[in-house]
């Protein structure tokens, strides 16, 4: 189930902000190729855990000690029984001594129990702690990695998939330490030392006491693996069911409008039935395996009682020794049954680990060149030289062909064209969200691939069409790029973006919580927040990527006026399908299927009477005499 659509590229990794965390320790090397992939993943987790040496040592030592004191209890009980019984029989030792021996056994029992409890605590606590420390390291590394991976990665990999990796897969790796590794140590000690003690006391009886171990171990592991498969299948079905419910509730108006309630319930029932079938299967599998394991355990106990009873009758064994065997079985019962958990933890850790490491080992497609220095701004001139671009993926059609243009500080370029003509791609290439597949882009003569990404992105600011609002106050959303900003700066930016009037109407003003769980803003309001965000920062290149599409023409006009001061210091690129937004640009290019087909100022293009002029005619009312609606259909 290792579906890794995020496969690692070759080459060394840049660890970024989380480099001190060293999660790249034990990244698979040539030597690891000899192991299976699973083993390599598990070894890597172990190596990561070994960074907490003291805790690991403490946990392992405590595990061994806990097993030791646990195993002390059956012989103590046996001795106590013999003491109480044997002395009564032949009277070779005085009654006072026997009483003293009983008190001594009781005290030892109490001591062993206390120590067993204490060491179990140390073992479990440290096991959990190591897991959580490991999880913390991986969490930060994962977050850092996601922040540094380029847009092309995020286009390709679904957000839900990444969230799953960061949550569930991380948990799978975390639980490996305590539930997997340490439990294995405990079980090995209990069975190993226990078997030695029992087999050396009485071979046959020892074998009988242990007889249930292999059966239960086998049964519980196979059942666990089967249960895991069923669980994954069930999760998938439940996710499907959840989606049906979610969409039904979100789209309830469509459902009602079409009178589709019975259809929706049918759809729900079909999905629920599928989930139910697996859920039932899972219960049946679980029940038949747990109950048969208990049965096997009692059968072993019965056999020990029988054969041991015969020994005692023959006089070759004391009742105390028989008690030792019987209580030993009791002690083993729980840990042996948990063997299934152990197998499950290991299987889960190797799949989860491989999925997590696949992301961590990725190298960002866009990264600083080895000799990259900061961008040196002089004239603020942007040049596209025969730029071509195609999105990643086999057979993806090229989006841009040989696009060339120049914009200088204080000047503006308008880009217009039908949907899919490549307008937004230009906006994404300049800050290096993607790299061109041909040609080059320079700022003040420097190829943008030769300067540091951070300095480039500080110089180039893109205002997106559909900006992300964070669940935070409006002011902190505006100050997103400059979190040290004071109130005055935020107000200024808001007034440039013409959103101040709206903010004043809100009950909490700039402190109003917006975003997913706050007040929801309309498309136009969101776009104005994005513009305010951008104007908080001084930029050498400003790109408006259809960022006023949802703003009415009047307001847009006012925003353009107030932005003038900002645009004087920057080279500005305005992308829009509404010509009013860009007709004043110094140069306008008309893009079609990735090529520039017309260029010039508004007046020149109108005079040419080409595509631009046609679009302009379409958008102005004057030419709107014959109605395209009803009646006009062919």
């Amino acid at each position: 189930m290792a579906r890794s659509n995020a496969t690692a590229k070759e080459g060394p990794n840049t660890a970024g902000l989380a480099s001190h965390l060293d999660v790249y320790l034990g990244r698979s090397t040539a030597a690891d190729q000899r192991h299976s992939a699973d083993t390599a993943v598990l070894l890597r987790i172990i190596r990561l855990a070994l960074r907490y040496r003291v805790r690991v040592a403490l946990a392992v030592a405590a595990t061994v000690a806990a097993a030791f004191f646990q195993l002390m209890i059956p012989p103590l009980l046996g001795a106590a029984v013999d003491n109480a019984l044997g002395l009564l029989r032949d009277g070779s030792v005085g009654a006072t001594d026997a009483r003293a021996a009983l008190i001594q056994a009781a005290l030892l029992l109490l001591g062993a129990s206390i120590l067993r409890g204490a060491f179990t605590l140390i073992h479990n606590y440290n096991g959990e702690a190591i897991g959580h420390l490991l999880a913390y390291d991986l969490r930060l590394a994962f977050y850092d990695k996601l922040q540094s991976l380029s847009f092309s990665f995020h286009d390709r990999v679904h957000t839900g998939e990444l969230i799953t990796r960061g949550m569930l897969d991380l948990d799978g790796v975390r639980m490996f330490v305590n539930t997997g590794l340490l439990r294995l140590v405990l079980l090995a000690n209990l069975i190993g030392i226990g078997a030695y003690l029992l087999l050396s006391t009485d071979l046959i009886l020892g074998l009988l006491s242990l007889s249930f171990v292999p059966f239960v171990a086998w049964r519980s592991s196979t059942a666990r693996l089967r249960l895991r498969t069923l669980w994954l299948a069930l999760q998938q079905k439940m996710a499907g069911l959840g989606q049906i419910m979610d969409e039904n509730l979100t789209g309830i108006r469509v459902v009602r409008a079409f009178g589709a309630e019975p259809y929706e319930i049918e759809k729900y029932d079909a999905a629920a039935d599928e989930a139910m079938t697996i859920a039932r299967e899972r219960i049946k599998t679980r029940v038949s395996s747990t109950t048969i394991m208990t049965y096997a355990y009692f059968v072993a106990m019965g056999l020990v009682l029988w054969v041991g009873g015969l020994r005692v009758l023959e006089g070759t064994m004391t009742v105390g020794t028989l008690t030792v065997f019987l209580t030993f079985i009791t002690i083993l019962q729980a840990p042996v049954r948990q063997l299934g958990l152990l197998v499950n933890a290991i299987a889960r850790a190797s799949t989860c680990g491989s999925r997590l490491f696949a992301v961590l080992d990725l190298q960002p497609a866009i990264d600083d060149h080895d000799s990259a220095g900061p961008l040196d701004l002089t004239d603020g001139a942007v040049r596209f030289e025969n730029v071509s671009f195609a999105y990643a993926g086999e057979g993806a059609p090229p989006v841009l062909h040989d696009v060339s243009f120049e914009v200088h500080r204080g000047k503006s370029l308008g880009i217009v064209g039908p949907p899919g003509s490549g307008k937004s791609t230009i906006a994404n290439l300049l800050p290096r969200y993607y790299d061109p597949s041909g040609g080059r882009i320079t700022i003040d003569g420097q190829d943008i691939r030769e300067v540091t990404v951070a300095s480039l992105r500080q110089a180039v600011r893109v205002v997106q069409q559909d900006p992300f609002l964070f669940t935070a106050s409006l002011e902190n959303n505006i100050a997103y790029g400059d979190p040290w900003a004071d109130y005055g700066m935020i107000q200024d930016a808001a007034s440039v973006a013409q959103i101040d009037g709206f903010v004043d109407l809100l009950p909490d003003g700039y402190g109003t919580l917006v975003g997913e769980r706050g007040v929801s803003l309309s498309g136009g309001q969101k776009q104005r927040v994005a513009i305010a965000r951008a104007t908080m920062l001084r930029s050498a290149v400003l790109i408006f990527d259809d960022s006023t599409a949802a703003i009415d023409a009047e307001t847009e006009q006012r925003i353009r006026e107030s932005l003038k001061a900002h645009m004087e210091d920057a080279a500005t690129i305005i992308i829009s399908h509404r010509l009013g937004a860009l007709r004043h640009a110094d140069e306008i290019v008309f893009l079609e299927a990735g090529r520039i087909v017309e260029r010039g100022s508004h007046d020149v293009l109108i005079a040419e009477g080409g595509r631009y002029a046609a679009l302009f005619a379409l958008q102005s009312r004057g030419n709107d005499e014959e109605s395209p609606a009803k009646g006009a259909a062919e």
Partner: protein
Amino acid sequence: MTTLSGANQPDGKTQRPPRAVVGSQISMDEEMFGAAFDGRVISRFLSYVRPYRGRIYVALAAVLVFTGAQLTIPLIIRYAIDEAIVSDRASEALLMIAIAVFAAVITVNYAANYIQDRVVGLVGEQVIFDLRRAMFAHLQHVALSFMDKTEIGRMMSRLQGDVNALQEFLENSITAIGDLVLLVGIIVIMLTLNFELGLLTLSVVPTLLIVRLIWLPRARVAFRRARETNSITNGALAEGIHAVRTVQGMGRERVNFELYDDKASENLAAHLRSAKYAQAMVPVVDTLTGAAMGVVVIVGGTLVLDSALDIGVMIAFLFYVQRFFDPIRSLTIQYSVMQRAMASGQRIFEVLEVPLAISDKPDAVEPDHIDGDITFRDVTFGYTKNQPILKNVSFSVNHGETVALVGPTGSGKTSITALLHRFYDVWDGSVSIDGRDVRDYAKVSLGHHIAMVLQDPFLFTGTIFENICYRTAGATREDVERAAKVVGAHDFIMRLRDGYETVLEQQGRNLSLGQRQLLSFARALVADAKILVLDEATANIDSYTERQIQTALSRLLKGRTGIVIAHRLATIRGADRIIVLQQGRIVETGTHDALVAKNGLYARLYALNYASFDDIPDELLRDALAGPANT
């Protein structure tokens, strides 16, 4: 301009920017724990269990048999040792009898265990699926006004999380009964076997109860905190992934990383604390078990020495002591489970008790065919008492005619379409189709004869084909393709990788708004209803798609009665008649030319020269509504 701002953070890494946060600061969890027992919740819950009561009785019987067998096993060992092994009458034959009984009891134990777990598990699952379905089905018919007010996320957590809490409760209650019987059984047997020894051994129990009672509330706080920090940290991760483009664009990587580190560190600390609490009970239970064994060894051993007690009884005691703490532990866990279940149950039944606002009359009609004449007569309606949205609205639309509803936000356009479909009932007056009041139609029938295209073209996850057929069972591939061709969606569909079988991810977010709009037109066309209600999208669509949509619209309306909530001038002008609404009243009706000539509200709006009425800035709109301009 060599210095760029945005990098003006003061030195000192540990200081966090005052305005920077990652993730939401609020925890998503609803109240987790309620009272441990809520009679109303229990009795409502039992009504869902009742259909399976036969199986529940079987499970209960199995639990009792199982517990009995568990209690008997140490007694058989005791008998085997005392009677068959160490007594004067000891013999292999007696041992054989003991072993035979042992074998019989463990087989019964196995069977009972199997029946109990299987029946409880399956019934629990079934009840929970029933309950979830009941909620889902109920939500299909509750008043739309309830759905309008309800957050989807909250409702989903009821359908999923709360339901699971009840499942846990149901499964655990049956085993809890077993645990209780086991506990009482062990006490009774120990006291019966030897009252004095039993009493002394049991003396450790109060200590455990006291320690656990002190421990429980504290531990719960720690566990809860760990859960909360988990959801906060994961929320921040999810935000980081969703917003990655903005984060990179604004250069917030380093700041966000540090803030995320803060959250992850809090999460780590909370988990370490909760791990401490989780493990704290282990040494207590172990110590008390050791003490109880010590009591049995000293007191029991002395009694055996004095021949006042059989050795088998002492061994049986040692077995019971080791089993003793398990039921106490599960019972205290069950207490938390019950509290959680009551809180969840309350939330679930709250949903199930939401009244169904509108139901069919017993003699509601379901005609196969309608003509599609619509009449509104003196309709008054509102969503809140004493605040009518529509006031005495009367108009009629003949079949085949297209009427555009025009007016500023809040003028009542959407309410008119909602009333036609009977999403709500009128306060006064009547809405009728073909002369028959809509309240006399079955709701399903209205759904069949009225097709609606909503402002936000909602698509379901599934193929394009499925989305276009939607509820029209029996629509063939030809029907769907024909519809797609008519509305002009066929070409772009065929350009998609799998054509009509292309799966729309995340409700069609991979398509543009215009494309989704065209698909929803095709859906309405396949539904082939006589009446078409269309709420035109206000969002800005590029001129190319806009033209396609206008063409599609005119084809869609052909031969149908159309009510269009129109925003675009082109659409409005294409209508046969325009109804202008203002504050819940019809102020003007007529054709475009007639209304322009009339020089009223419509003419003033039109004169502002905007391609869409929604583009009109607020101030101009206010002036236009106020009255004729003084020219």
